[in-house]
């Protein structure tokens, strides 16, 4: 028997924050890893939206309620206040209209967890400054010509956009090397330098 794989730190934070029986929408839910955890550990009523058909198939095979959809276009289908919580995990940087997506999440859910790679991480900065190359790092593993990321941002950038979408910042979790640092209530300058990625907890 093998030990169960350790839970990603951002998923761990989300799992500890979801009350039992809450309704959760995971936008860009991939193969349903987080949804299955939320269902099994939090008895959450989970639903998902995923762009890739392979991801959708994998989710439905696990009995998860997931539809094929595009965050840029299809979030507007959901009724106002349909969910207690919405999750947008490592997806916003690949959307065409990040502000629209955050506004739609604000309309659909009362709380949100949004994670994304930090484009102000020191390795990213040094790659451009010293190597004169578009950075390829642990948080941004794809080359410039294959990446699906079109709207990269820093922690400070995201904080501004979240406020523009009428969200309040409840907590900032800096993520680096598979670990989450202690939460802060807003982005500190050093986090914007040292975090490979961040998980923002937003409240209406």
């Amino acid at each position: 028997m093998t030990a169960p794989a350790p839970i990603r730190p951002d998923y761990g934070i989300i799992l500890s924050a979801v009350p039992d029986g809450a309704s959760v929408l995971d936008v860009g839910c991939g193969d349903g890893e987080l949804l299955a955890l939320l269902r099994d550990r939090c008895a959450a009523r989970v639903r998902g939206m995923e762009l890739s058909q392979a991801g959708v198939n994998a989710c439905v095979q696990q009995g998860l309620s997931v539809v094929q959809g595009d965050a840029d276009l299809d979030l507007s289908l959901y009724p106002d206040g349909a969910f207690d919580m919405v999750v947008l995990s490592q997806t916003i940087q690949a959307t065409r209209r990040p502000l629209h997506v955050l506004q739609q999440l604000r309309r659909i859910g009362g709380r949100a967890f949004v994670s994304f790679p930090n484009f102000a991480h020191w390795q990213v900065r040094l790659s451009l400054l010293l190597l004169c190359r578009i950075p390829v790092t642990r948080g941004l593993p794809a080359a410039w010509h294959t990446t699906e990321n079109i709207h990269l941002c820093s922690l400070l950038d995201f904080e501004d956009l979240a406020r523009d979408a009428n969200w309040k910042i409840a907590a900032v979790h800096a993520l680096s090397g598979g670990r989450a640092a202690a939460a802060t209530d807003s982005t500190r300058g050093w986090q914007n330098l040292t975090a490979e990625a961040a998980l923002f907890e937003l409240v209406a």
Partner: protein
Amino acid sequence: MSAPARIMRLPAPLPLDGGGVLDGVDVAYETWGTLDARRGNAVLVCHALTLDQYVTGEINPVTGRPTWWPQVVGPGRIIDTNRYFVICSNVLGGCMGTSGPASLDPDGRPWGLRFPVITIADMVRAQAMLVEALGIETLFAVIGGSMGGMQVLEWIASRPDQVACALPLATAARHSAQNIAFHEVGRQAVMADVDWRGGAYLEAGIRPAKGLAVARMAAHITYLSDSALQRKFGRSLQDRVAPTFGFEADFQIESYLRHQGSSFVDRFDANSYLYITRAMDYFDLAAAHGGHLAAAFARFRGRACVVSFSSDWHYPPADSRTITRAMIAAGVEVSSLEIETDKGHDAFLLDEPDFHAALDGFLAAAARERGIA
């Protein structure tokens, strides 16, 4: 194994969308498995246009052909008859034992065209009376492909509290102009056959076999895809090495379609074909709910699984997306799936591993949720 053919005379007159009621309606049905003590494990399977109540088992006892969904329904299968109580009834207007134009009117004559024009909602109303008479208040699942999927959608629109899970497969919430067009070609082929006799052929002891065969040939093309036809037949010749410069079936595809047509007329009534295709043409669930499809699903609080097939041009994936989007807007807990296949509309009847895995996962999770052992 199937039990012997069963027929239930509906306990009350059946109200019809077209006005009036139909008295003394018979519904032919089959069941498999056992209803549990809570009466909570019933699954209603809705059949497509030319299929029937013989879903699974060794052989269809009426036609002598294989049953139509044994790989999905049966002991140990996805819809496990050791676990679920499975029901399938022949639709209203059909010709496999349920009242239709080929059955006898109160005076003992075949109804023919004097049978009232029926709708998908009428079919579902008859099914609901059967289900109720079997002592079932809530169906664990209602599942069906093509016209069966229309019945699934009608069930959750008109009887939302009586269904826990809905699985509309390879279907649409309304019949497109193209679909109506193909049906009209089929109906005109039947009616152009001199043996149709204004629909009164049964009294004359004949059948409009040529017209119905042509109708079936045209329809059969819509159930397949261009690439599947190319793969199976291409331009291959039938039992010959060169074209004959005549109008015999030179090509394998011609021979195949002729066989499809001629074998169909042995098992299907021409007037039933007219009535059932008409019911499908009239199906427009949004129109029946103020023009808003989401309104049709607003009272449904169960789970839904909408499945389409990439090469299905009869009920293309876009039709299923319309259903899914309306369900999302209505707050329904919906899953949607588009299966990649070149087998066209008929893929829902064939071995599609991704499709079957999804059906299995969806039903197993829903059964767990509802405590079905």
